[in-house]
């Protein structure tokens, strides 16, 4: 498998999938939004604010799934020192931060009319905020360390340390008395949510997953090109006499 997982093969085989994955995400998103607004009824307690759930919950799933992808990539970086694993990890962090921000913002917009507060220091909300801060910390770490291999190792270690937050997020609603409702989809005794609301939610979850895959492939492609640019810049700087090096946009090769 590793023979195929190299940057050149990635550009050759994975990049052509980007428009297909993006198209699939858009199609599923359209079906999911139709179900969310025209098929799913208003909730008997929440009213129409339940429609926020169709973006909030997929964003919450993705915020954790992306961190899981980063943790697996971190293992690939530390154990096998695989260059694509490092690129995949670095490329996923801003996407994870983006989807976690969507989760927090939409949750807040749901909380104000339902709980009467934009924010409460509830175990679930706080642990997701910690996840958001970990994403921002990882992005800052990559920016702060100039040597890419050192940055990759440091980020991989921090990512693996941060994995402890994932079960805390998942089980926070069981371990503590929280204002946030417990799990209603992925439960051992089956979903407690009505089928008319469940299928649009699952379709929106799939759409969000394919959206992440699309964006992740785009981001990995950029990361590979950035590394190629950095390598070429170093070679050019070594070959050219002082003052003749190619002009690059500031930070382009970082």
């Amino acid at each position, binding site marked *: 498998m590793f023979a195929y997982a190299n940057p050149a093969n990635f*550009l*050759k085989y994975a*990049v052509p999938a980007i428009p297909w994955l993006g198209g699939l995400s858009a199609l599923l998103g359209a079906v999911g939004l139709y179900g969310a607004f025209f098929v799913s009824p*208003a909730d008997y307690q929440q*009213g*129409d*604010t339940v*429609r*926020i759930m169709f*973006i*909030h919950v997929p*964003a919450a799933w993705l915020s954790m799934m992306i961190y899981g992808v980063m943790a697996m990539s971190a293992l690939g970086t530390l154990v096998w020192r695989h260059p694509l694993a490092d690129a995949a990890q670095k490329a996923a962090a*801003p*996407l994870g931060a*983006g989807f976690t*921000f*969507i989760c927090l*913002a*939409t949750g807040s*917009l*749901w909380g*104000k*009319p339902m709980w009467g507060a934009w924010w409460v220091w509830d175990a679930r909300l706080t642990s997701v905020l910690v996840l958001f801060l970990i994403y921002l910390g990882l992005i800052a770490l990559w920016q702060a360390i100039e040597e890419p291999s050192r940055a990759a190792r440091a980020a991989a270690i921090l990512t693996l340390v941060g994995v402890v937050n994932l079960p805390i997020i998942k089980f926070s609603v069981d371990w503590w008395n929280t204002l946030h409702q417990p799990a209603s989809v992925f439960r051992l005794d089956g979903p407690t949510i009505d089928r008319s609301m469940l299928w649009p939610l699952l379709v929106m979850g799939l759409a969000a997953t394919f*959206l992440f895959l699309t*964006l992740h492939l*785009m*981001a990995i*492609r*950029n990361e*590979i*090109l*950035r590394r*190629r*640019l950095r390598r*070429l810049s170093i070679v*050019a700087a070594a070959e050219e006499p002082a003052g003749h090096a*190619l*002009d*690059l*946009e500031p930070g*382009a*090769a970082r």
Partner: protein
Amino acid sequence: MNVSHAGFILAAYAVTAVVVIGMIATLALDHRGLKRALARFPSRRPETGA
């Protein structure tokens, strides 16, 4: 359809749209900038990342 708390629902979907479009635009612009910067170097092998 008489929608309760329409402003909150609209704001939630608007925030999501802005973040998603922002992520797509950032990646597309970054790709364009990288391709432009790479084009300044003599060609060594064909690019497949277009």
